[in-house]
């Protein structure tokens, strides 16, 4: 009760502070060359009140205060404490409060950490960020108040969706948001820098750190979401091209491209238009993603409640931001790239530019695949759904040149490069093709495209591996990230090519056997936990080499709300995952059993961690 009250009024105070900040910024901007200390302290106060509000919501969840509508809708007394807390952001209102928390946290950190930049720039960044913050305050207070009362007070809550009761999913939103919402600071600062015309090498060095933070968290956030989907949804895949996944992938693509443009800007002060547009695009795509999944225009796991009023608010707000940035871009930005600048065809910046265009292409494929069904529905009233084949067909062929440029590019020099002493580039290519052919020789399906794909991924792999030894610690972050990417592509390809699956119905005690695998359904146990009851099936799976694994998938029946879920049991080894999941067939004593062997699964996760590790190193590395 008291928590809701404190939480709600903290939000109102936060909003008022936001308005004060506009006023201070206006005064400070015109009159002084030193940052007013009031601005700093008020930003801190705003952050403080948002934190208070957020803590209040967490406490309401912990004490199961069902007079709060959000808690009532998403919690239950029998839930373990951990999921009571994570339930705070497992719903629309709470996750928006988290948005706000990240927004205010980042602007405060920005003001504190930014040195050696003009005061006007800092103030203007604050103003643009406050526009976003105030927008979200209004959105939260007007349409999605997390502290709504219900009376009479219910004695019990409705419970959290069981598929969200999972450790990976408890940390997925905060991590993802740090990247997703963190990109707002890039947006604000790029608008400020464009307005003041201070986009330069110096600015690039300063903003690069912020881009890296967002990028690292976004990468890790997507990874955790993907791991969760792999073991929890029980489909045995890790990426489904679901709209929700796409809306996190799009900012990631834009952000990755931006990261590379910033590197060029840092060295040569060119590509400024790229940097500005990509910075705007990244945050706009994040907002657009929020709009798509929260308004109910697309249906997905993340669509918590379909309220058109909410959708309309974000939509209008999103387009205000878009128009604002377009105006600023065209009004203030004069392309200074014109100073007799030309790209030499064989240089680092040319290769970055080529791959930027490829990234833009991938981005547009994902964007079109995600929003095209909406457009078609509105214009022609036709309903279509766009599935994995669309993305695979359009993306995979273009990965080949992309990978090649990615391998060669870092080995070229800035401005102009020669082809002498680059014989190793050719020899590695031949080795990769031969190796890929040897691996795939015994496969008859699509041998040509797969050989080319795998050889280009292998090529990147070998080249980056060589760079580790030749270049020593020069560009180590880039090298690690690119090496990780080659591993990622290789693992995904092998994972797809060599996966195998068995689907069968088995009773307890029965045995399934084919030439490669023997599945014995040994026994069934029961388990009773605080928030669910489970049936555990014990399987022993062996192959002709005499290796034996014991796997125990579960069927869980959660009590609040009553939902049955299948928990896959996965045995992860270095080279492959064994994945088994069971389903109950009504009124039958047999279970539907699905057993999959997925090679290189672990490597997919590891390579993404490696990619973000490259970002982390770049972040902590001191400039030489």
């Amino acid at each position, binding site marked *: 009760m008291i928590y809701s009250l404190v939480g709600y009024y903290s939000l109102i105070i936060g909003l008022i502070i936001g308005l004060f900040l506009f006023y201070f910024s206006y005064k400070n901007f015109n009159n002084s060359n030193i940052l007013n200390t009031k601005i700093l302290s008020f930003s801190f106060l705003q952050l403080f009140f948002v934190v208070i509000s957020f803590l209040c919501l967490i406490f309401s969840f912990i004490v199961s205060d069902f007079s709060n509508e959000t808690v009532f809708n998403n919690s239950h007394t029998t839930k373990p404490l951990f999921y009571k807390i994570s339930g705070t952001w497992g719903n629309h209102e709470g996750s928006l409060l988290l948005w706000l928390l990240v927004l205010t946290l980042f602007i405060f950190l920005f003001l504190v950490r930014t040195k050696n930049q003009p005061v006007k720039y800092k103030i203007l960044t604050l103003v643009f960020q406050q526009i976003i913050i105030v927008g979200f305050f209004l959105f939260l207070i007007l349409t999605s108040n997390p502290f709504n009362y219900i009376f009479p007070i219910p004695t019990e809550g409705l419970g959290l969706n069981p598929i969200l009761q999972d450790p990976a999913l408890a940390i997925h939103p905060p991590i993802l948001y740090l990247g997703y919402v963190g990109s707002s600071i890039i947006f604000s600062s790029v608008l400020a820098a464009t307005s003041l015309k201070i986009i330069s090498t110096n600015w690039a060095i300063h903003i690069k750190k912020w881009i890296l933070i967002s990028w690292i968290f976004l990468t890790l956030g997507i990874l955790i979401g993907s791991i969760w989907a792999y073991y929890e949804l029980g489909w045995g895949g890790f990426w489904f091209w679901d709209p929700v996944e796409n809306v996190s992938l799009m900012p990631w693509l834009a952000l990755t491209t931006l990261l590379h443009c910033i590197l060029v800007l840092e060295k040569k002060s060119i590509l400024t238009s790229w940097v500005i547009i990509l910075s705007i695009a990244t945050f706009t795509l994040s907002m657009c993603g929020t709009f798509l999944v929260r308004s109910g225009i697309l249906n997905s796991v993340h669509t918590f409640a379909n309220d058109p009023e909410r959708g309309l608010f974000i939509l209008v707000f999103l387009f205000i931001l878009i128009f604002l940035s377009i105006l600023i871009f065209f009004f203030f930005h004069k392309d200074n790239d014109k100073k007799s600048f030309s790209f030499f065809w064989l240089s680092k910046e040319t290769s970055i530019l080529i791959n930027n265009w490829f990234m833009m292409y991938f981005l547009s494929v994902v964007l079109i695949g995600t929003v095209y069904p909406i457009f078609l529905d509105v214009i022609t009233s036709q309903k279509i*759904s766009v599935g994995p084949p669309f993305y695979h067909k359009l993306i995979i062929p273009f990965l080949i040149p992309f990978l090649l440029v990615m391998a060669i590019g870092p080995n070229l020099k800035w401005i102009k490069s020669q082809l002498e002493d680059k014989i190793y580039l050719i020899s590695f290519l031949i080795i990769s093709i031969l190796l890929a052919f040897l691996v795939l020789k015994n496969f008859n399906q699509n041998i040509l495209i797969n050989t080319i794909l795998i050889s280009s991924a292998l090529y990147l792999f070998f080249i980056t591996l060589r760079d580790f030894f030749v270049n020593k610690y020069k560009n180590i972050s880039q090298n690690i990230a690119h090496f990780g990417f080659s591993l990622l592509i290789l693992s995904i390809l092998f994972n797809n090519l060599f996966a195998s699956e068995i689907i069968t119905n088995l009773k307890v005690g029965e045995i399934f056997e084919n030439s490669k695998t023997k599945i014995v359904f040994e026994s069934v146990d029961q388990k009773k936990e605080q928030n669910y009851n489970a049936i555990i099936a014990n399987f022993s799976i062996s192959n002709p080499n005499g290796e034996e694994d014991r796997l125990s998938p579960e069927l869980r029946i959660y009590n609040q709300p009553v939902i049955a879920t299948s928990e896959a049991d996965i045995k992860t080894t270095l080279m492959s995952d064994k994945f088994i999941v069971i*389903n109950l*067939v009504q009124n039958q004593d047999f279970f539907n059993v699905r057993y999959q062997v997925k090679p290189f699964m672990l490597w997919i996760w590891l390579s993404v961690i490696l990619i973000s590790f490259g970002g982390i190193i770049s972040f902590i590395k001191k400039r030489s």
Partner: protein
Amino acid sequence: MKNKILPFIIIFIFGIIFVIFYKGLEDSKIYTPDINAKKEIPDFNTKEFFSGENMKSSNIFDLDKIYLLNIWSSWCVPCRQEHSFLMKLNSDNKVNIIGMNYKDNFKNAESFLKELGNPYKKIFIDLDGTLSIQWGAYGVPESFLIYNNEIIKKYIGPLNQELVDEINLLIK
């Protein structure tokens, strides 16, 4: 000159996107669009559920009767939910309910019907999901109201009391 026009073009494009999203928002709650209404039912060959004998679509649907084609599956949880409504509709005897068993295993499907009852006048099978594609179905469960070999209305997702009332109103 070129640079003067460009901003307007871009703003115009985003304006259009805004309008489309806005329109999309209005429709977003309607999950059962009646745009597919008055469409001829497809012509197809299939197998009868219990006997496994070949069947033709023309033998299933007669011209002057009202049918409710229901796509279901034993593994589909929402199908369980809506089953009681189908049973009720069947007992009212105003509409002939036809079942399309979607990507299912005979044993499981049979026990599903044994447990919950069989509201279907006829059941045919769609083993690989191709028939559903012909019908333009998105998934299970889904129901089509059919009269004179024309689809009058399509219901995506499980039926509930509200929709059953609507069906009763339509077939009056």
